[in-house]
């Protein structure tokens, strides 16, 4: 299964970026083989709508789930419309986040966990 993890860098030992819309990178990883690609996020400095555009980026990359720190209402609505599972509150390395996901211990987030523009201040 392909999942997207927000990351501060382009490797599996990068930290999970707490921001979704304005994450530095998205790591698209295969949860079985741990093969991955990194996408730099063009929306990091967007004037607005970063969450929506970032959601579109991970949808187009074929991800079926998203692991991140925080997710606001617009990104949440977009991901939900594409039936993408969302997991928030992740910290540590991308590798650890994927392992946690694989262990089945993560609980899916069914509502945005922060307000709009939350990632502008972090």
């Amino acid at each position, binding site marked *: 299964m392909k999942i997207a993890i927000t990351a501060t860098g382009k490797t599996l030992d990068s930290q999970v970026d707490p921001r979704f819309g304005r994450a530095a990178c998205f790591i698209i990883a295969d949860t079985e083989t741990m093969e991955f690609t990194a996408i730099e996020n063009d929306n990091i400095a967007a004037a607005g709508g970063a969450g929506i*555009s970032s959601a579109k980026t991970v949808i187009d990359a074929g991800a079926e789930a998203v692991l991140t720190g925080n997710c606001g209402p617009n990104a949440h609505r977009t991901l939900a419309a594409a039936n993408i599972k969302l997991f928030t509150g992740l910290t540590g390395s991308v590798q650890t986040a994927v392992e946690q996901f694989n262990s089945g211990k993560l609980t899916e987030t069914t509502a945005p966990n922060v307000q709009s523009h939350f990632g502008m201040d972090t």
Partner: protein
Amino acid sequence: MKIAIASGKGGTGKTTVATNLARTAARLGCKTQYLDCDVEEPNGHIFLKPKIDSTQPVTVDVPKVDLQKCTGCGKCGELCQYSAIISLAEHNVLTFEQLCHSCTGCWLICPENAIEPAPLEIGQIELGKAGSLHFASGLLNIGHVRTPSMIKEVKKHLDPDSLAFIDVPPGTSCPVVEALKDTDFVLLVTEPTPFGLNDLKLAVALAREMLLPFAVVINRSGIGNDQVKQYCHAENINIALELPDDIRIAHAYSQGRMLIDELPEYKKHFTRLYKYLETIPDKRHDT
């Protein structure tokens, strides 16, 4: 003739100057308008206490998608620079009306004619009179962000045959630019403090960028330091009016009373300012 009353810093006395100046001009027999373009928090009505004759809703167009017609081509979302519309798949298009800037692009580009404009109410405009002074004020609905659109609508009520005073929002961002557009002269209200000076410099830079002639009004003169005056002198900027730091002004203001009515000794200040503005050339008569 359109005079904008602006400031970089908030709370320097824009509304005090704009309302007292407008009332002074009207009482001197000039056909005068006051337009409150500080649409996120208009307060001119508190002082002018106009009789409101009509309240008009203001709407903007936002996209409405017929999902049955949508083929998921994605052209709408690719075009939109604000992510206000996004196509995820066939029959699956999301719109975020709060982000829409009403550019009309999505309904023009849609090859299936699946998108049409639908009105979204963003606020109201109140029109009325305070004595002989014509009054217009915009109020943006809470939670809406289309401030420049709202200001544009208020300015549609400008009467070309009147002397208009436009109460501009504070700052130097898009709403301020919209309010300043096409005005003939700008009064930049500041206070003689380091904060006042810092934001005055930003406002001066904006007025210069927009090629608008301007002068400075110093409010609460006597507090802070003399750096605003030094700056104006060095930059060759006219100080058109100084209002002293007078506790009675603050007292009248806090009760929603007009300075010129409550403290008649200030009438001459505003009359002098009005006479000064009369000497400013009206762009409409330029060739």
